[in-house]
């Protein structure tokens, strides 16, 4: 089985759907001839043709609006937004239109679009190349939000997202494009080589939306994470000495609430980890769900380890980034309560 990094796995997913479904097409800024600023669409225009993978004007609102119109026609567009930080000009089209076409037309129209966008920090991206906007989209009824944490899931989840009949925001942790990253930034960079989750089938397969993955089984606490934070969580659990269970949510919406509840009922403790700032972050929703559904099983308060409630800074990258030490400290606190 081929070994792929996340970029190659995403590229393979796009190649598979372009090959299998003539109604799929890719467009966005620099995705065509050049192959994308992160190389995710490399070679696709050459292989599949100019109209299957093409460059768009620098207009996020226009990209998403035209994708919605294409979706309403019957296509399955896969628009790219170069950085999730720049998805906001398209916010009206995503929230007021893509998310609501089906509802407001009683099913006459819908937009099966998959909006791919690199997100997340840990790369010295500063304020506008590091943000994690998943909570903004999780709050929008009618949108699905999917975040992979490894090459295998990235390909399977992307194909599943494209084949899904609802609009999907597909956030790609750019910090994980070339290798797993556990937040130990002072250590040498790793690649995906040798990682079992980097063994990616060449052909078509899917990873279902709405199904979390248990990355590490444990008995003393549950850690909920997604994206880059899955790897950070593994390191933090190791540092803490706590036998924690780690759940990679994979989909924010639809959320695998059953997996979360089953784990927390088993362990009695829950720590939530995400890069996005804490207040109003998706961790708040997770915490509320756990509290509502596992109240009598909880041995300590649910904790949230997250980015600070500041814009994402440049020089203070590692002060902001919720690394393994902060998770380990939270796990220890959870055990002391």
């Amino acid at each position: 089985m081929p070994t792929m990094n996340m970029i190659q796995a995403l590229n393979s997913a796009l190649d598979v759907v372009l090959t299998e479904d003539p109604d799929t097409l890719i467009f966005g800024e620099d995705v065509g001839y050049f192959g994308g600023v992160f190389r995710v669409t490399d070679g696709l225009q050459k292989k599949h043709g100019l109209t299957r993978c093409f460059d768009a004007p620098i207009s996020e609102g226009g990209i998403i609006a035209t994708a919605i119109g294409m979706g309403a026609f019957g296509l399955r567009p896969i628009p790219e937004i170069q950085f999730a930080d720049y998805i906001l000009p398209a916010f009206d089209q995503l929230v007021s239109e893509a998310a609501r076409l089906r509802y407001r037309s009683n099913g006459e129209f819908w937009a099966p679009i998959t909006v791919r966008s690199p997100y997340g920090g840990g790369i010295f991206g500063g304020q506008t190349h590091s943000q994690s906007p998943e909570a903004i989209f999780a709050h929008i009824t009618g949108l699905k939000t999917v975040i992979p944490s490894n090459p295998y899931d990235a390909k399977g989840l992307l194909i599943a997202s494209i084949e899904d009949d609802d609009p999907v925001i597909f956030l790609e942790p750019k910090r994980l494009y070339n290798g797993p990253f556990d937040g130990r930034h002072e250590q040498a960079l790793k690649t995906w080589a040798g990682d079992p989750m980097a063994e990616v089938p060449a052909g078509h397969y899917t990873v279902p939306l709405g199904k979390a993955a248990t990355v590490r089984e444990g008995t003393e606490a549950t850690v909920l994470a997604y994206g880059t934070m899955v790897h950070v969580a593994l390191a933090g659990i190791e540092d803490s000495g706590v036998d924690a269970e780690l759940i990679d949510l994979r989909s924010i919406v639809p959320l695998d609430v059953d997996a979360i509840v089953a784990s927390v009922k088993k362990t009695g403790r829950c720590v939530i980890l995400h890069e996005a700032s804490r207040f109003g972050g998706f961790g708040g929703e997770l915490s509320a769900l756990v509290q509502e559904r596992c109240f009598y099983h909880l041995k300590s308060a649910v904790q949230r380890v997250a980015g600070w409630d500041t814009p994402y800074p440049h020089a203070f990258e590692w002060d902001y980034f919720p690394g393994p030490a902060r998770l380990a400290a939270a796990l220890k606190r959870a055990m002391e309560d």
Partner: protein
Amino acid sequence: MTVPETDSTRNSRPLSLRVPEPAGRPGDTPDFSHLKLDVAGAVDRPPVDARPVQMMDLAFRLIRVLDEDGTAVGPWNPRLDADTMRRGLNAMILTRAFDDRMHRAHRQGKTSFYMKCTGEEAIAVAQGMILSREDMGFPTYRQQGLLIARGYPLVDMMNQIYSNASDPIKGRQLPIMYSAKDYGFFTISGNLGTQVPQAVGWAMASAYKGDDKIAIAWTGDGATAEGDFHNALTFAAVYRAPVILNIVNNQWAISSFQGIAGGNETTFASKAIGYGLPALRVDGNDFLAVWAATQWAEERARSNQGATVIELFTYRGAPHSTSDDPGKYRPADEHDKWPLGDPIQRLRQHLTSIGEWDDERHEAALKAAVEQVRQAGRESEAIGTLGQSRPSVKTMFEEVFATPDWRLTEQRGEVGV
């Protein structure tokens, strides 16, 4: 050393902010003397394959066919047969009768909201007749004439307005936000301008598939100021999308006159020029001019030569909505003084002048329209008006997604449905 409060060495006068104001406010005599209106027949008709740069002057002229005597003149005369014109006239009459009844229904407390299109009937009716149901229209909330011209059941329109048990969109939307796919009528959104670039995307999809369908979109003058308008024109031009982009300039965006949207600086049609798109500026109250311009744009789109921008110059005769009182911001008799008249009266005059219509037939048509609306009204009101009848509450949770997720299933359970 102290710093002086003002720099006495500068000799410039203070700047001042200009805020455009309309020619008339309540109590003023309406004044349209600033309008430069071409006489009927004065504007040349370029070939359908003209390059935009060769026809830039059309963005500043006004295509008109019907002259003051109701005679169809000039190169844009579409030479329609009398039956087609009578169908158009009847559809306009029916649209106005429908508007009048639903406006009254709001006053009677039968619905929460309504918006008339008085004075603008020629636009949606003519364009709805030219394009087919296979083509997709991306309307605003003021193109009800499109549905009526295409024979969409009035009773279904009313059911939507009353949000009753037979509402085609299950009581989910504000009245008049219709959706009618089979009639080439895209689901209306409350968010202004969003549909214009969506229409471009739909047209791009048709071209991508090698299909023969085209898209048509409408926006008002006010909403051209939205970023989506710019996005739409950019994408339409770049990808040569087979789409007709209409700007219905009815002079008013709620209480703001068109100068607030940039209409004093240039024409709305001329905005197309900067994008490399052809622009037509048309008398929107002249059924035949609207017809001819739309047909020109349709032929251009269908022959893969891309998009056309059409500014339809008209006047919003009615209040913006049932929640609006134009008496507070414009002269009460401004619509009566509108120099381009009324679209129904002008087509009536033309048909009469060629011996294909008369006062008796007109009166009969008015009566028939009122009766048709009354009949639909009875049928719809028998199902129920707002608050008296509604779809099952369980449908509130449907179509959020293709398949409801656990949240929706649980919440539906909480409601007990």
